[in-house]
């Protein structure tokens, strides 16, 4: 299909990448609360449930994730989990994002320089 924006590379967003990485790391235990906890623990930043679930939807509509309703547990008050699995496309996109960040960071130093 002809694309007017063929020269524009559509990359993952930072938060999308965090979610894909957390879901991939958690494997079969990946679901809403676990991904949220993983992101908060690794980044040290708060992850709102609204941002998490809307991004999960977006990634699923792009074909990078697959979600389904899992089993209910007593710990969750008898409520089911929304289980998450990263698809092959998701893995490719996350790897491409990671590569791009690595390449663009080559030669750059983030040490604070005292100019005074």
């Amino acid at each position, binding site marked *: 299909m002809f694309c007017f924006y063929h020269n524009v590379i559509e990359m993952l967003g930072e938060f999308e990448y965090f979610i894909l990485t957390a879901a991939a790391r958690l494997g079969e235990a990946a*679901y*809403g*609360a676990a991904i*949220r*906890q993983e992101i908060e623990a690794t980044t040290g930043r708060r992850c*709102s*449930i*609204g*941002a998490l*679930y*809307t991004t999960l*939807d977006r990634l*699923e509509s792009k074909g990078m994730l697959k*979600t*389904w*309703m899992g089993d*209910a*547990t007593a*710990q*969750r*008050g008898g*409520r*089911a*989990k*929304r289980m998450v699995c990263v698809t092959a496309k998701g893995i490719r996109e996350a790897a491409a994002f990671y590569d791009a960040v690595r390449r663009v960071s080559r030669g750059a130093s983030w040490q604070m320089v005292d100019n005074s």
Partner: protein
Amino acid sequence: MNQMCRWLTDLVSRLLEPDDRTAVLGDFAESGEAAWQALCGVAGLVVRRQSELWKHGGPWIAPVSLVAPLVILFLTPAFRTISWIGQQVVTFWHMGVRYETGLPAGQDTIRMVCSILLVIVWAWSGGFGLGLLAHRTAWQHPVVLASLFLFLLRIMESTSAPPLALVWFTVWTSLVFAPFLLGVWRGSRSLEPGPIWRIAAAMVILTAAIQTVDAQRMYARFLWPASVLPFAAILWQYALLFTAAKRRRPIGVE
């Protein structure tokens, strides 16, 4: 305070899809967050979900371009029929005969019943169409809010004469407002425009019945003009079927 926050969280979470609601409330129960944090989280998700829905063209374009013109088309016969029914009831109440015709209650009933059913069918169909197109945004849609406003305005206008006000209230609620809201409710939960075919058939049959009743033919044409209604009924169904194909699928539906 915690109890209040929990109650509010439960209330606000009802605006989410059932699967979303289950997952989110389960996540909060598992993480053991404070009740106010859960409330803020759920409210944030609801706002995001609602704004996502309004980003699509459907809730804006379809009701304005398709539903509104047909609702306007429906309003004239609906107002005429409701006035006519109101006058019939009041005249019968005071004089024991029907308005204008002077017929007793048992006669000329087919046309009256068909006219009433047609108003109900149009109102339900309008609500169903709006619910089908706007999905979960239907309840905040300007068309619904405008209908509520018109309904309240109509009641306020008729408060000067208490018996008439009661008639107006009952007729408006049972013939227009309740079917319209039921239609919105049914349409917002429906994935297929299935009932539309039955409604289309009902519209055509009722119109034909009204137009072919020999007695009071002039009044039938006054209430439901023959030249307009069949065309409107067909256009209405076509518009709904055409736009329903572009409906957004909920989570988990392949």
